[in-house]
């Protein structure tokens, strides 16, 4: 039996110094502990930390505590009014019960749903067992990534929330032995490359304390669109987060991020480049979608994601510029 210690952190400093594994809502971690995928020796419960508020900053941005529950964040008035893409993304994820438990920090760090990662009877998973190979390549791969994959890992990043935060250009604020650091969400998530076990920029023991969002772009419209087989309670086959501002029928500002297709929450810079300054037309949306997916590398079962992602982008752009 795998025994572990459990303690409840009283302060951020204490948590950061504890040297244990943080547990927020536990909806990822406990699941994986039951599967034997995660085997922490020391659990540090951080849900009691004073990091559960959502505050508007002097610069007009928003500070979100890492302990804010996904449900509370999704239903927060400011989020609904000014960061609708984030609210929509959160509400499209998991189930109400899970969202009630899940925390902002935990959601950012949720692990892939790759079935071979989650089943320890497969010794070959580079993410779990560096250097052991990748069971997903050549296996059941319908849900796997098509962007940012490597010869060592093709696992999809599963979070919806992080996709919206990518489009909103969030910053992750962490605290640890080295003090406080701010990491842009673009730098936070790592591509798998040859080391898929390294998923993000956190140092061992570092705690996510906050996420900040820049001041909302005045006059922008925001859309999160998630496509999947069933109507709820399923990870994205593909999703798109769009923040766009148009005037005179032309696109003046646009951010596009994709979910369900990338090994990390996927910022579609190429799509943005195609769109900037152009008329908001179906032809430009399609061209942007083509650009976003031009480097897609599908596996044997997920070729359909390429076209589906394109259509998802087009629909999200259409709605956000209507």
């Amino acid at each position, binding site marked *: *039996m*795998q025994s572990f210690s459990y303690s409840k952190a009283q302060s951020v400093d204490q948590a950061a110094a504890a040297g244990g594994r943080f547990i927020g809502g536990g909806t990822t971690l406990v699941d994986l502990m039951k599967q*034997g995928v995660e085997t922490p020796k020391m659990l540090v419960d951080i849900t009691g930390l004073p990091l559960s508020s959502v505050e508007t900053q002097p610069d007009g941005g928003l500070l979100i505590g890492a302990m804010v529950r996904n449900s509370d964040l999704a239903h927060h008035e400011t989020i609904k009014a000014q960061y609708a893409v984030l609210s929509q993304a959160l509400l499209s994820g998991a189930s109400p019960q899970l969202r009630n438990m899940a925390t902002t920090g935990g959601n950012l760090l949720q692990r892939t*749903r790759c*079935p071979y990662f989650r*089943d320890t*009877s497969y010794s070959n998973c580079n993410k779990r067992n560096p250097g052991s190979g990748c069971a997903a390549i*050549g*296996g*059941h791969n319908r*849900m796997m990534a098509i962007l940012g994959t490597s010869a060592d890992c093709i696992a999809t990043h599963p979070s919806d929330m992080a996709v919206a935060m990518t489009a909103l250009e969030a910053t992750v604020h962490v605290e640890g032995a080295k003090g406080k650091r701010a990491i842009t969400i673009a730098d936070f998530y790592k591509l798998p490359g040859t080391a898929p076990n390294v998923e993000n920029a956190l140092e061992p023991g570092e705690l996510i304390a906050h996420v900040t969002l820049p001041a909302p772009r005045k006059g922008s419209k925001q859309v999160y*669109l998630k*496509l999947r*087989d*069933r*109507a*709820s*309670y*399923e990870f994205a*086959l593909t999703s798109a987060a769009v923040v766009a501002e148009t005037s005179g029928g032309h696109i003046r500002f646009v951010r596009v991020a994709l979910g369900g297709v990338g090994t990390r929450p996927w910022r579609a810079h190429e799509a943005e480049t195609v769109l900037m300054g152009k008329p908001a037309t179906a032809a430009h949306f399609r061209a942007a979608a083509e650009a976003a997916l031009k480097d897609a590398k599908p596996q044997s079962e997920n070729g*359909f994601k390429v*076209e*589906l992602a394109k*259509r*998802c982008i*087009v*629909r999200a752009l259409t709605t956000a510029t209507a």
Partner: protein
Amino acid sequence: MASTTSSPNGTSPNGTSPHGIIGRPVSRIDGPLKTTGAAQYAADFHLTGTVHAVPVQATVGNGTIRSLDVSAARSMPGVLDVLHHGNIERIYRAVPNDPSATVSETRPPFEDNRIYYWGQYVALVVAETLEQATAAAAAVQVEYSAETPSVNGELEPFAGKWHTVSSRGKVDDAFAAAAVQVDQTYVTPVETHNPIELHSTVASWVGDSVTFYESTQGVVNHRNAMAQILGVPRENVTVVTRFLGSGFGGKLFPWSHCALAAVASRRLQRPVKLVVTRTMMFSNVGHRPLTEQRFRIAASADGKLVALRQDALNHTSMVDDFDEGCGEATPYLYSVPNLTVTSALVQRNVGSPAPMRGPGAVPGLFAMESAMDELAVALKMDPVELRLKNDATIDESNGQKFSSRHLRECLETGSAKFGWSRRTPGVGSMRRDGKVLGWGMAAASWGAYRFGCSTTVELGADGKARARCATQDVGTGLYTIFAQVLSEKTGLPFERIEVLLGDTTMPEGPLSGGSWSTATVLPAVAGAADNAIASLLQIAASTPGTPLNGVDAKTLRLTEGRIHRSTDAPAQGVPFESVLAAARLNGVSGDSTSGSAFEDPKTKALSMHSFGAQFVEVEWEPEIARLRVSRVVTVIDAGRIINPRAGANQIKGAVVMGVGMALLEETVYDPRNGQPINGNLADYLMATSPDCPEIDVTFLDYPDYALNSYGARGIGEIGLAGVAPAIASAVYHATGVRVRKLPVRIEDLLQSEIREA
């Protein structure tokens, strides 16, 4: 989910019901027990001294065990025993083809060192706690000589022997000569039963006898099979299933874990609890097998069927011959002079398949009704019209009369309620709110059966009526059916009625399968109640000091719980319990045994089936390939409906299951090791609440008196029949994509040439 229910013919044709309890939409008598958590399911039995068993599963899909090292596991805390093929005493096979003792798997667990499918149990760890057993199970070291398993999802090319299920006329000649032909192959995937209650066994061996607290759909069969497998007399085995969190057919017959729990209990002489995990449910306790069916169907230019040929394959395990029976409904559903149905089995490295709600007919009708839809398109004929034109008046497979067949009315009523006449046939021709609509329909059918049943009814001095029967309520409302009959016969309210089911010490009742429970128990419980009442009236007529002493018993009646002269009002009579008290009796009882319809001269010569029609609307957003089922109208001809509330619940649940079958459910095997790779409820997709369409259920409610005096057939399965092909036809109507391999996926929909609504 909005939904409505109606029964146009729902007056009381039986006429025997004093306060109309039969046919009334009553809520379940066991509802409060379930909603308060008081209902005890198998795993809820916590016997003193219980220990926990956890199986170890093979991680290869084909091969042999080379070595099995349990030393680490044995020495772990709390571990009491580790069983495997090298140390287990004999577990006998069940007698082949003994219908009273059916098992799911031919091969008993741990019979040898062969591995036939991924997940097969290779060892069993028993420990004081579940956690200790789980940890020790993970520490059992097994090495295999593995070969690549065969889990190929394609069953053709098939070179083996076909078996003829039904045949008339000259089908191949007629097909070749026909004006319009459809020749297509349809595939339904492996689906896993996912009742909310996990398979669970608590086995308690004391001396020579064993008691099972089981999640089974058949306590009597379970007892009989376990006696054979464990090598003990039947009377030494008791099986108790007070409540079942459903089974959908997966819990009809015992699986390996049941015997393992019992053997462990016998060795340790302590109660053993074994709960199969959700992941194990995907490999070890059955599934609806993969089916691949070629249909050749042909008609004259005006739409009269001339030839129908079905060649159906289904996969089975390496050691069991599980025939899905896809030809179930084909021979009798339509009038067609030339027909052949054949079937064959293809072995795969999978666990044994098992019956799943509407076995045979449900995948068979997906194929046949899809082919009918394709034929209608080829004929440029309305699909309802095509069915009406080919409605059968007798069962052409055997020349028998139907006991009661109202398929035509199902189609017409469904058509009217759905608004079918507003359908425009062109692909993608119907729109609403920026979406394309697709309308599809299919006919449905399922057999009507009645088996033998014995029941005891007791009228007690405590003023209560009780029924006892060794059958089980699988969650469908059978407790309430018993209570309704007792209430009808005695006039007592439900508060004064007790129904005791699910215990083999009671008189033998039926297996809960095939939608036959209601039709089977009704005659027995009614007969037992009549016998108990007859005894009671005799006592009333002959108990000195009571008001009716000396009156001819034949003139006495029991109404509203009071015994009275037939010429008097019930209020003028006496409460029955006071008569029993005066006679110093604890109660009177009556027994009754009713027989099987297969042996009944009245029914033997009749073709008995339920019928239905499914009408479906899908909404399709071509721009994003999003398709949802928005509306279903279901019309069911299943005889007299005893409880329309529980009945509609069955149909609605089945329709939702049909949405899952059509659009979501598929067990996927990793080709390299044969593991069901989506074996959990996050990755194996079943319909969720937002996937539920608006459902409108209509029961035609024509009694079928051939089956029993209430005219009831059964409704557990018919609601699923026809849903998937109706959805697939609606998908075609909306998108132009004909999906012949379920489930209909986004991958398929992306092929549509309709790109915007």
